[in-house]
Structure formats: structure tokens, C-alpha cells
């Protein structure tokens, strides 16, 4: 008989094997799902995993989709480390897009080199400001940051909708809910000719490095980690809980805001009400699958981006709704949480008495 036996200490190896195990299980479940839907599982998995990577353009699209995921997840992971559950990155992403769009529209046809840095700052600040609301309500009134940050996602979506249907609507846009296309000075330069891959990827990589330095090489980062892993020790050492909350939420908000800026100044070139494909929520999964570590987040965001693109492929070639990508993403997180049991326990054969 199989049973679980507690390990004397958590397994570091399993901490990193568990995401791999989860990925393999997700693929297996995906194959079963395709078979249940009456599609060829091998063909389905090929569309999901291989087809998107077959040429340079495919790779560039993968990195393009991974960019907002990487940025949002990097910011979220800083908070998650300290048990600050900001799950409103989706809203902070939208506010970042709104902040950047505001500056792009204000600059109009200006060709100044300051437009892009201004948008960058505007996006990050707007995202951080949106995250400051749950931070303030948590520190001042003890309000649960999960629910507050989540509620603000819906408010942010309605704000975007109001802007693009109302004051910011393109007068020549045939009544579509979208702003004018940004001027060239408000668009991020493309990194590789012939693709949509833009400078935002470098922001994301810079954010990963910055997050690594902050979490593992700075005292403030150390305080965040202690607050998450041993709250009592943090209290005893006199680390300010208030500062932990503010740091966690502001980092998450600024990074998500930056991602929103990179989306409107990158592939979209305008603000529309179909701004996000749920990047802010997917980033929660990325952060967990990436073990809240910058390197892990890099790899996990590539995997999640692959699932997004695979969803589009399957929609195109197999006539299945692209929301199948959401199912896969959810399964990935489920399997990860399940596989994590092996960090603390190991499988033993035989009965309890024989093992003891």
C-alpha cells in the first residue's frame, strides 16, 4: 500500500522538480482532453507545443506574449514572498495602460524623445497608485488585500471601458471602443525586424534582474522573505509589517503598470477595451509555477505564453475555443499545488507499522 511519510526537512530538489512534474501532468491531461473532444491528441499537442516554435516569427510571438507575464509575475512574486496576496495585477496592468495612454494622447504628434520615458513613468506610477489603494486600506483599516485588489480589477475594467467609449474615443474610429493610434514617438521600437517583438522584453528582463538583486542581495528583500517564511521572527526582529505590505503591493503595481504600458505602446499601439488577455491573472500562475524566483518566473512565463499561443493555434486549426488555454493554465496550477505535496512528504510502500 502507498502512503505519505513526512520528510524530516523540505526537499529542495522536489521544490524545482514539482513544476516540471506539473507541466508533464498538464500535457498528459491535455492529451486526454483532446481525446475526449474527439480530436487527435498527438495533433493537438503538436499544435500547442511544437507548431508555435517552428520559425523565428513564432519565437518572437512567444517572447512577445511572455513579456507582460514576466513583468506582472515578477512584481507579484515580491509580494507573495511576504504573504501579501495582491491578486489585482490585472487591474494594475490596465491602469498602467491608461496612464501611458494619457501621456501618449497628451503628447499627440510630438516627436520628442521624452514621450516614451514619460509613458513608462506614467504607466508604472498609475499601476503603483492602483495597488496603493489596497496597501493603504490594509495598513490603515486592516482590510483584506485579496478582496480589495480583486474588486479594483472590475473597477479598472469599467474605467477603461468608460474612457474608450467616452472621452478618449477616436472620433474617426467608426464608433469602435478605441483611442487613436499612437504617434511613432509613443511606440516602443521593434527589436527584430519583421516581428512584433519590442523593447518591452528588455524591461521584463531588467525587472527580473532587479527583482533578484532586491530579494536576495538587499536587506529590504531579506526582510520581505523573513516576513513570509517566519512572521513571528520578523515581528521579533522589529521588521515593519506596514513597510512589507507597502513594498509588496507597490512593486507588484508598478511592474504590472509597466506591463500595461508596454502592451499599449507595443503590439497594440492604442488603448482598446479588449486590452488584456487575462495576463494579470495568468501571472499569478506564473509566479507560483516559477517558485517566486526570477529564473523560475522567466521559464514559467515562456511556458504560459506557449499555452496562450497554442490556444490560438488550436482555435485556428481544430476549431476549438481558444479558452482551452485557460483550462490548461488552470490545470497547470492545480497539478503544481498537488505535486508540491512531495516537497514535504515522500511516498512509501508498505504499511505504517513497517515503516516505523
Amino acid at each position, binding site marked *: 500500500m502507498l502512503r505519505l511519510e513526512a520528510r524530516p526537512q523540505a526537499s529542495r530538489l522536489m521544490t524545482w522538480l514539482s513544476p516540471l512534474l506539473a507541466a508533464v501532468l498538464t500535457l498528459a491531461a491535455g492529451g486526454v482532453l483532446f481525446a475526449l473532444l474527439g480530436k487527435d491528441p498527438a495533433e493537438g499537442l503538436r499544435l500547442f507545443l511544437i507548431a508555435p516554435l517552428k520559425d523565428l516569427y513564432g519565437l518572437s510571438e512567444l517572447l512577445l506574449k511572455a513579456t507582460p507575464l514576466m513583468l506582472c509575475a515578477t512584481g507579484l512574486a515580491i509580494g507573495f514572498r511576504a504573504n501579501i496576496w495582491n491578486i489585482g495585477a490585472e487591474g494594475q496592468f490596465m491602469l498602467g495602460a491608461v496612464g501611458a495612454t494619457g501621456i501618449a494622447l497628451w503628447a499627440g504628434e510630438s516627436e520628442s524623445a521624452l514621450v516614451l520615458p514619460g509613458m513608462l513613468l506614467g504607466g508604472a506610477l498609475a499601476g503603483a497608485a492602483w495597488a496603493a489603494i489596497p496597501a493603504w486600506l490594509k495598513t490603515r483599516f486592516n482590510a*483584506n488585500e485579496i478582496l480589495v485588489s480583486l474588486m479594483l480589477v472590475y*473597477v479598472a475594467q469599467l474605467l477603461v471601458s468608460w474612457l474608450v467609449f467616452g472621452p478618449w474615443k477616436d472620433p474617426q474610429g467608426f464608433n469602435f471602443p478605441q483611442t487613436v493610434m499612437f504617434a511613432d514617438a509613443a511606440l516602443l521600437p521593434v527589436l527584430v525586424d519583421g516581428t512584433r517583438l519590442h523593447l518591452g522584453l528588455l524591461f521584463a528582463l531588467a525587472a527580473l534582474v532587479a527583482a533578484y538583486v532586491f530579494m536576495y542581495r538587499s536587506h529590504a528583500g531579506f526582510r520581505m522573505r523573513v516576513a513570509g517564511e517566519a512572521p513571528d521572527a520578523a515581528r521579533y526582529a522589529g521588521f515593519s509589517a506596514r513597510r512589507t505590505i507597502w513594498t509588496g503591493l507597490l512593486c507588484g503595481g508598478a511592474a504590472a503598470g509597466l506591463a500595461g504600458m508596454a502592451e499599449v505602446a507595443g503590439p497594440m499601439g492604442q488603448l482598446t477595451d479588449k486590452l488584456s488577455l487575462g495576463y494579470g491573472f495568468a501571472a499569478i500562475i506564473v509566479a507560483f509555477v516559477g517558485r517566486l524566483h526570477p529564473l523560475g518566473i522567466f521559464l514559467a512565463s515562456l511556458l504560459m505564453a506557449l499555452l496562450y499561443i497554442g490556444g490560438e493555434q488550436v482555435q485556428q486549426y481544430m476549431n476549438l*475555443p481558444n479558452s482551452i488555454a485557460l483550462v490548461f493554465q488552470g490545470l497547470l496550477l492545480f497539478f503544481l*499545488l498537488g505535486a*508540491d505535496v512531495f516537497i514535504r512528504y515522500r511516498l512509501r510502500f508498505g504499511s505504517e507499522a513497517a515503516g516505523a
Partner: protein
Amino acid sequence: MEGNLFTAVLFATVVAGTPLILTALGLLVNERAGVLNLGAEGMMAVGAVAAFATAHHSGSPWLGVLAGLVAGAAMALVFGFLAITLQANQVASGLALAICGVGLAAFVGKPYESLALPAVPPIRLPFIADIPLLGEALYNQQALVYASWALFWAVLYFLYRSRAGLVLRAVGESPAAAHAIGHPVVLIRYLAVAFGGAMAGVGGAFLSVFYTPMWVEGMVAGRGWIALALVVFATWRPLRVMLGAYLFGGVMVSQLFVQGAGLQIDFPSQFLSSLPYLATIVVLVAISRNPATIRLNSPLSLGKPYRPDA
């Protein structure tokens, strides 16, 4: 406000509050057993799709409700396996359920998006439906509205008047003590989680089969999260859940109030739509200001995994 307008507003408020009551009362029982399931939004979405699809194919709204109930409970059991048996982090597992449920509902529901169900006629209760002003609003409603009242009384009786309810509360306060005197903590927590999921599934079914007899991706629109906030707002007490749910129902139909008051101000519709979410934040702040309120009322072991040693 004119009489028939008052009736209309009250009617709409009760309807809008009903999915919140169903879901929040389920979550309340769930949390009273010490398990925090943040996946309500996903369970409602899956319940709504399952109910819609079943009602569409079978032609019976009641089979639809049953399907919503079963689907919600099934989703909750997946969460239960992670959070109770494998002792995964309850916050993370609940988020996984919320994300996965919303995605699954979007996927399964895609072929049903352009369809509509026939509206189910309300059930008019004899005599009391003739009471002026109130009767038409309260007693000429969908059967599930009456069921939500019955659920309220059942939960009240179960928690405070039955032995089983006492055991459930003991499990939520001190699972170790409950285990020591021989209660099956794990089983009770599974049952509570399944009940929470089933009720969220019925809440979703109410949305897609009765409220607006159709399915659209995103139609749950945060009601699962609002229900979670309601349980905190109600400090884990059923009566306050009812009051809170109708309060939120009122906020959700606020455009009726605006018309009713004869206001000619041209609000952007998005402003009115954002009110339930803003109201949720406001009530959370109001109830959380005093840390003792939450600490004294929340089940002691809420969110903490428990593994019996032997």
C-alpha cells in the same frame, strides 16, 4: 417614489440578492468548518454553464439547477483534495479553483453563447402575493428565491440548533480538539467544502437559467468574490449574510433607483456598474477597521490545514 416603482425596485433587489445569498450561505458553512475556499467565482461560473447546458438539452430548468449543484460540488471537491488531503496552501488552491473554473466555464460554454432559454414563469404564492406594495415584490418570485429563504432557515437551524452543526463549528474552531474526542475532522471538512461548492453552483445556475436565461462568458462578474466579502462583512453570521446580500442586490440594481428618483443626471453607465465593487471595498473597510471584530468572530482555524497524526 411611486408605489409600483417601489415594488419594481424591491423585486429587482430581491432577485439580484438571491445568487449572493445562495453562494454566501454555502461559503459561510464552508468557512465555519475552518476551510477558506476563495474559488467561489470559479464554482459559480462552472455551475452556471452546467446548469445552462443541461437546461438547454433537457428542457428542464430544474435538471439544470441540479447539474449546477453537482458541478459546483465537484469543483469544490477538487479544491478539497488539494487543501484538505494534500494540505496545500488554501489561498493558492482557492485562487487556482477560481482561475480554472472561470476558464473551464468559458471553454465549455462557448457553443452555448448565442442561445437563450425560455424564461421560467415566477411562482405566485396564494393570498400573501396580494399584499399591497410588498406582495408582488416578495411573493411572486422564482422558486429559487423561496429556496434561498429556506436555505437561510436551514443553515440557521443547522449551525445553532443541531448537534451536527455544533460539531462542524468545533471543527472550525479547534480541529485538534474535535479530532481528539473522535470526530472525523477530514470528512466533516470535505462535506462542508462540498456544500459550499454545491450552493455556489446553484447560485450560478440561478444566474444562467432564471436571472438572465442565457450564458455569456464573464456573466458571473465578480459575484463569487462579492459573496466571499459578504461572509466577512457578516462576521460569519447567517442573518447578516441575508441583510448584506439584499444591500448588495440593491446596489446592483442602482440604475433603477436613479430612474426612480427622477434624476436626470447623465451618469456614465460604467459608473453605476462599478458601484457594487466599490461598495464591497467600503463595507470591507468598515467591518475590518476594528481588528477585534474579525478576530473574535472568524472561525479560529480558518485557512489553516489540519492533519490528524494518527
